[in-house]
Every structure is written in C-alpha cells, then in structure tokens.
C-alpha cells in the first residue's frame, strides 16, 4: 500500500506543480470582471447611474453618452441573479446612486447563468467579483473550469503575444468587435436559442427583480427596465407566449412600484441594420444611439422626480 501511495505521489507531483503554476498565471491575467470589481470598489460612491445586465447592456450601453457619473457593470451572459449579487455587494458604497438600469430581454425571466451553456463564467464571479455564492468547488478555480486547450491559448495570448486581455472601456462598455456578424442569420439563431420552453425559473427571476427594485428603493433610486432593440429576424421569430409573459410581468412591476420605469425598444425602427453587431446586439454606432435614448429617458425620470419633490414641498 505504501509503495503505491509513494508511486502515485511521485507520478502526480509534476502534474500538481504544473497545475498550480497554470492556476497562478491564469489568475494574473487581467479581465473585465476583475476590472469592474476594482472600479466599483474605487468609484462606487460617485456612481449615479449603474448599468447592469447581460451582453445586451454590455455591448449596448456606452456610459460615455450618459450624463453624470455612470458605470456599465454588465457582462456577457450575466443573468439577473448576478446583477442582484453585484448590487447587494456594492449597495453600501453606492451612496450617490440615482438610477439602476437593467435590460429585460426576451430570455431574462427564463434563464440563469448557472444553468446556461456559459456556466463556466460563474468562476469569474467567484474569483474576480468575489461573490462566493457558488456551491461547485470547481467554480473557485481557473484550471478546472476551462479546457486546457483554451487556457493554454489564454496564456500564450497574454504572456507571449502581449495581447490586451480586458475587453472593455474605462467605464465598462464592451469595446466593439472588429468582425461583424451576419445580422439577419444571427437574429434567427438568437431567437431560437433564447426561446425557452422551461418556465420553471420564472417565479425565481421575478422575485430577483423585486429584490433589485427593493434595494433601489432603499437607496431612493429609480429602476429603469428596458427591452433592447433587435433586428426583425430576431423579434419576428420570438415565442409570443414567452414575450407577452415578460411584458406583462414588467407592466406589473411598473404599476406596483413608483420607482420603476420601463421602455420597450424591441421593434424601435430608428435602429437600422447599420446599428447592429448581430441580430440582437448593438455595434458601436448602435450603442451610441441607444445610450443617448436611455440618457433622455433618465433625464425625463429626473424631471418627473423633481416635479414630484416640488409638489410635495408645496
């Protein structure tokens, strides 16, 4: 027995050493998650408008076009349970928070990151956003959540080819991709991919939205929900039941809470094919238009709030 244990130990030693070296090197590669956490830690007290959400917000909202201090904390595939966790984590420091802006996409109420095909991203929240909410031990390591092939590529790109590894601007907006997608085809694929027959998550997601609203209320902030614009091949192929349940739910949240607002950009015809990166994501110019439209909405909300305060003081 001792003989085999000794042999196994000797055999595994190089693998363990190599694994540890890989883990350390991978963790030292800067990424959007670490950057955003760091930014929030440093600047949360000055943020007035916080953007949360998935890639629809990450690519679609450029805080450079938003009045006042704002930050885009959205990241690809970020589901609302992680939006809530981020908001909870930084709530005490968000002393000047006025608005929380969150996209309510067609899939928002029916998916979460942990159960999605991109669940490998959970590790980023555990390791770099330091959220500690996952129960899977592998989510606290780099090497056990991605294939060796991918991790070796990451090491080569960063350490040997010296490529930039953080893909967002200083204010958290995704730097636009150079290569454009086939907007019409990806719209159709996206609609298919986002149609979820499993409605089991609906109640949980609704409760999460209520919790986000409640935190915002405690901070005297408003919540602006919006459904992002999409190309016709996307919105024409959505499941009517899933979409109308989403819209009904948001209507309910708006009517039940005086700090909640909503705008639907889904079929907004002012966005043309030139504004899309793919069937349901904005490119650089599209993000500028959307960000300006959101900014106008936020200013309108401010005006309404101001008017309400004036009325109350009278």
């Amino acid at each position, binding site marked *: *027995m001792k003989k*085999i244990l000794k042999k196994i130990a000797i*055999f595994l030693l190089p*693998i363990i050493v190599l694994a540890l070296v890989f883990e350390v090197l991978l963790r030292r590669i800067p990424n959007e998650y670490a950057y955003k956490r760091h930014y929030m830690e440093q600047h949360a007290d000055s943020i007035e408008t916080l953007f949360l959400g998935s890639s629809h917000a990450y690519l679609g909202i450029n805080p450079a076009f938003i009045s006042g201090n704002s930050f885009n904390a959205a990241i690809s595939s970020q589901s609302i349970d992680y939006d809530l966790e981020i908001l909870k984590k930084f709530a005490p420091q968000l002393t000047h928070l006025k608005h929380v802006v969150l996209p309510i996409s067609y899939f928002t109420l029916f998916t979460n990151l942990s159960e999605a095909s991109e669940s490998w991203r959970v590790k980023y929240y555990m390791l770099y956003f330091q959220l500690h909410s996952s129960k899977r*031990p*592998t989510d606290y390591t780099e090497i056990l959540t991605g294939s*060796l*092939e991918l991790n070796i590529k990451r090491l080569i790109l960063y350490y040997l080819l010296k490529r930039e590894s953080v893909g967002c601007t200083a204010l958290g907006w995704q730097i636009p991709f150079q290569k454009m997608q086939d907007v019409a085809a990806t719209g159709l694929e996206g609609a298919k991919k986002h149609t979820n027959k499993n409605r089991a998550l609906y109640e949980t997601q609704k409760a999460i939205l209520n919790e986000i609203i409640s935190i915002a209320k405690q901070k005297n902030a408003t919540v602006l929900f919006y459904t992002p614009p999409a190309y016709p091949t996307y919105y024409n192929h959505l499941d009517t039941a899933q979409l109308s349940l989403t819209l009904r739910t948001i209507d309910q949240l708006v009517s039940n809470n005086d700090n909640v607002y909503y705008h639907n950009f889904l079929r907004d015809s002012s966005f043309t094919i030139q504004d899309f990166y793919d069937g349901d994501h904005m490119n650089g110019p599209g993000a500028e238009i959307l960000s300006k439209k959101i900014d106008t909405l936020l200013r309108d909300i401010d005006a309404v709030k101001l008017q309400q305060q004036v009325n109350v003081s009278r």
Partner: protein
Amino acid sequence: MLFNSINFVIFLPIVLALYWFVTNKSLKLQNALLLVSSYFFYACWDYRFLFLLIFSTLLDYFTGLKMAEARTPAIKKSWFWLSVCINLGFLGVFKYFNFFAASFAQALSLVGLHTSPWVLHIVLPVGISFYTFHGLSYVIDIYKDRIKPEKDFVTYSVFVSFFPLLVAGPIERATHLLPQIKRERHFNYSQAIDGLKQILWGMFKKVVIADNCAYYANMIFNNAGDYSGSTHVIGALFFTFQIYCDFSGYSDIALGTAKLFGIDLLRNFAYPYFSRDIAEFWRRWHISLSSWFRDYLYIPLGGSKGGTWMRVRNTFIIFLVSGFWHGANWTFIVWGGLNALFILPLIISKNNRNHLEIVAQGRTWPTMREAINMVLTFALANLAWIVFRSENIGQAWDFIAKIFSRSLFTVPEVMPVKIFVLIFIFMVIEWMGREEQYAIARLAIRRPRLVRWSVYYAIIFCIFYFAGTDQQFIYFQF
C-alpha cells in the same frame, strides 16, 4: 455524482483511504463502509430514490430467504413471482407507464377515439434498470437452486449497491460478485495499478472521444433537416463512436474503480467494432446485459434447441426486449428488431458462432476478408445506431433517407478534422491492445518507467487538453 467530476475525485480517495487504512482489519466493517459510501454516492443524485433502492434490496433479500425456507414448490413459486412482479412493476411504473399510456391513446386514435392519456410526471430513478436486473438475477438463481440465499443483509446490499456498478452496470451475477464480497480482501499492488490504468483509459474514452463526438452528433441529429446526406453520415459515425466510448468508458472506470477495492467486476465490452459479424458484435457489446438475456430469457425460452423457427422466435424476443430495456420509445424497439434482422441469416445458417476469438489473434493485420467483414458489420451497427439515437421513428427514417439521397455526394458542412484524428489514434490504440481486457493494459509495459509514464502523462494531457463539453453518461438514462 459523475465519475468524471471533481466530486468523485474527492469522494473516491476518501473512501479508499477509509477502506484500506481504517476498516481493513474487519471484513464486516469494510462491507459496511462500501454500503454507506454507495448509498451516499447514489443519494448525490436524488436522495428520495435511495428509498426505492433500499426497498428493492429488502424485497429481494427477504424473497431469497423465504424461497429457501419454503416447504413446498408452490410457496417457493409464489415468493418468486411476488418478487418478479414487484420488481418489474416498479420498472414498469417509473420507466414505461407514460409510454404505454401514450401508445394506448395513439392506438385508440387510429380507430377514431381521441383521448388525452393520463401521464405520470415522475423522474426516472437513475440506475433502476441495472439494479432491478441485479436483483432479478439473484432471485431467479435462488429459485432455480443455482445459489443459496445470502443471509447477511449488508453483504447482499453491497452486491446490489456497490457504487462503481450501481448506476450503469455492469449487471453483475450473484455467483460472480457475492463470493468476492464475502471473502477477505487484501490490497493487491498489481490489481490496483491495473485499476488505475483502466480508469485512465475509461476517462480518455469518455472525455476525449465520447464528449467531443457528442457535440457534433447532437448538432447534426438535432438539426438533421438542415444538413446534407454526407453530413448525416458524419453525424451517424460520431454517434457510433460516442455511444461506444461513453458506455465502455464508463464500464472501464467502473471496473478500474472496483479493482482499487480488490473486486473484479464482469467485463462489459470486448472491442465490438472489430467484430466480423453482428453475432460477434453482440458477444462483445454490453456483455453483461447480453449474457443476462441469454441466461434468463433466451435459454428458458428454449434457446437454440428447438429447431430453426424457435431459434428465430427466441432471437427476436430477446432483441426486442433488449431494445425495450433501453427505454420507453419505439426507436429502441425498432433498433432491437433491426439487430434481430441483421443476425437472422447467421442464426438460420447456424453461422452465429463462427468468430469466438478476437480478430487477427496473434497477428498484426487482419486478412482482407476479415477487414471487409469488420467494415460491413460496423456499417450495420452504425445504421442501427441512427434509429437508437433518433427522437422518433419518423426522424430516424428521414435521417436515413437523407443519407441515401444525392446530397450524400457533396462536401459535408461539418468536418471537424481534429475529432477524426483523435478517433483514428484511438482506434489504432484499441487495435494494438485488442487482445487485452482494455486497450492500454499492456501498452509500453516492457518499456522503462520513463517511457511508460510518458505514455500515461500523454493520455492525461489529452484528457485535459481535448476535453469535450460536459455530457452525462448516456446509459444513466436507462
């Protein structure tokens, strides 16, 4: 808990350490540990179904004792049928109820009566088909006076629930496994090393070949209409390798893990894709199930003794039942029927036992005839797997029809060269090791340690480097 999960990597060394360092002085303690860890392993899926497993174990344990105590054959027979009916009843409710309900409603609709079938919204308990067959073989063997009932409940429970085989086999026999559980076990260095190597090879099959093939097979089967006939061939090929590497990989890990506890399980696969005819294929594929059906169904039905008609009838029965064992879907039944059809000429011409030894034994290369036979057998198996993989018979038909369309002669839309290279290397290793229990059993065995270890490091590197997307083991659903 999956064999290819981090949880299992933590679980196994803990159980092994307790087994060989803490409980090694007492067989009873060792068996108790195996039972507790097996129940924990099973409960990790769904603790509620643990009660079903325990009930099934209790049922067969007491039935065994009662049959041995029975004063008359009639009493013995009643206990026997009680156990068989309850065991098959559970299997029927959990696995087949909805199928029968839906099929009945469909049959009624054919005569103009439209009903909405009452369906059960229940989850299939993992491993139910495997542990039910385990228990049944024990009860049948006692009924036929082949074995004496086991009096020690813990020993019997370990036989049913031993975690390496609990959820996807191999389907063990009391005559083979019970004596090992009752015997004192001492650590055996060679057996443990052999087990570790078999686990390593099983992991390679599952993670590198099966999971990578699964990605493309799923993509092609799920969007079959969008692809050409040539791409359908690739989809079918990938599923053929996926199911083999998934299930035989699982079996290798199970056998290897059992060896670490000093227990030898029944071999489940013996290089089926090197078979020269379908009869040989079925002697090499899922051996523990095929032999179960042979011993407990085919032979009691009269086997090969009663002339050609009886052989044909019995062959069809076991293939159809075997198909149905896999799941409540007509695709599995048709898959079983297809295999029966393929084997029929061999049964009628009494050529079904021509190839008992592995192909090209003691030689490097097969003869031209052997090679052609292997390719033809592989093609037949491949065709049957299309039906097995399809969601329904309609999809299977469309899939096969597309293969035999003009688009067969176009460039495939999906052509992952990397996966083809991996499959080729895998098949070369399998060919080189085909006379052993698993392909790398004697790979580089006579070479210096540095060479041997380099081979193992290379396999580990491949497992991590080429790891496909995480997929459940296919046979868990059965």
